[in-house]
């Protein structure tokens, strides 16, 4: 184990980490906004819209993120949309995040007993008011643990962007290994950095889940 190689290259890996965090937060913001809308679309009265949304969400969730990234980066240019690596990765990951958030939102809302909806409607609230003031606030608490779970997977999966050349933690590690040949030490360091980011998220998600179970 060569410790100096880790010590000397840590600043560069941390620059990669910054990029990982920026990419992940950007995707979380974009994907969550779109995902909440897509999730709520499952509860509109227009059947065709519900079906179309469900199909798109299922389709995207069934495809590996790596293929989505390759599709945006290598296949969209054939249609004339030629994006550089960075926006390609952001676009692919945002699609992924949107579909997975939509699924979390759908699950959260469906977990609220129907009686809540009927009771709220019978007090004279409109369907929209019921969703906004009665159903959604309760559902959000139930969405939180799985949502944080999705965010954790996203942080780990930002590593896939390295494959098309986006600079983030995994790419920074690969570049350092090309110079130093210390693949074992450096990948281990990268793993440790990912762990430091993801472990608190997992813990938070588990605690929130346990709190919900207790009621």
């Amino acid at each position: 184990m060569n410790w100096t190689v880790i010590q000397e290259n840590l600043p560069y890996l941390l620059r990669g980490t910054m990029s990982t965090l920026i990419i992940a937060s950007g995707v979380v913001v974009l994907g969550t906004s779109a995902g909440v809308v897509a999730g709520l679309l499952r509860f509109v009265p227009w059947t065709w819209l519900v079906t179309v949304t469900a199909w798109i969400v299922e389709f995207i969730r069934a495809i590996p993120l790596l293929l989505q990234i390759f599709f945006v980066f290598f296949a969209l240019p054939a249609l004339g949309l030629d994006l550089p690596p960075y926006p390609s990765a952001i676009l692919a990951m945002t699609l992924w995040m949107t579909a997975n958030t939509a699924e979390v939102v759908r699950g959260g809302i469906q977990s609220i007993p129907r009686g809540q909806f009927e009771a709220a409607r019978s007090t004279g609230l409109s369907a929209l008011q019921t969703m906004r003031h009665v159903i959604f606030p309760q559902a959000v608490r139930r969405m939180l643990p799985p949502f944080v779970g999705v965010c954790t997977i996203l942080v780990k999966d930002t590593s896939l962007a390295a494959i098309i050349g986006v600079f983030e933690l995994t790419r920074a590690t690969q570049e350092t290994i090309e110079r130093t040949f210390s693949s074992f030490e450096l990948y281990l360091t990268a793993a440790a950095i990912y762990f430091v980011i993801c472990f608190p998220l997992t813990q938070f998600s588990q605690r929130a889940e346990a709190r919900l179970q207790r009621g």
Partner: protein
Amino acid sequence: MAAFSFDWNAIRSGLPYLLQGAGLTVFIAGVAMLLALGVGMAIAILSQVPARAVRGLVRAYVEVFRNTPLLIQIFIVYFGLPQLGLRLSPFLSGLSALVLYTAAYNAEIFRAGLEAVPKGQHEAARSTGLSALQTLRHVIIPQAVRISFPALGNNLVSLVKNTSLVSVIGMVDLMFVANDISFNNFRTFEIYATTAVLYVLLVLGLTRVLNATERRMLRLR
């Protein structure tokens, strides 16, 4: 620029290879899941022993493998371990990383399953004269497996998708075949779109089978 024209011929000539790749993906995911079920169950049982050191080690394994990217784990096995003198083929590297990663998730599910079996079951089995090991094997584990089934099914679905990462180190699966074809004939759009459809068919088909099995298990109970 010239308007894009969809080339059905590229799909027609690529499809046989893509289907073979899909077969390999199913094979790799199947083998990895079987191994990961075994490892996961062993780890979950170890998490129930009284020795604190063992429980600590098991906890560490689960948390480390769940909280680091699978891609990095694959790279450590394939590029990192040779530095320590352990050189594995792309197939073995990819497979062992997939197994270790999935086993960590399976272990957590089995653990929850074991803990969800009511304590009375344990006491009742012991009082009929079964040994601790017999109780575990014939009474607790069968119930824990049934409780764990839906979550394990989700893991299998994730594993089918995660298998795509092993293509990066040169292990041949559906993703590898798709890259191989499209980098040769340059019909990236057609080939990747077909590959996406194949993954959707695989995943949705698998989900159907798992749901049907789950319903059947509930009826049996």
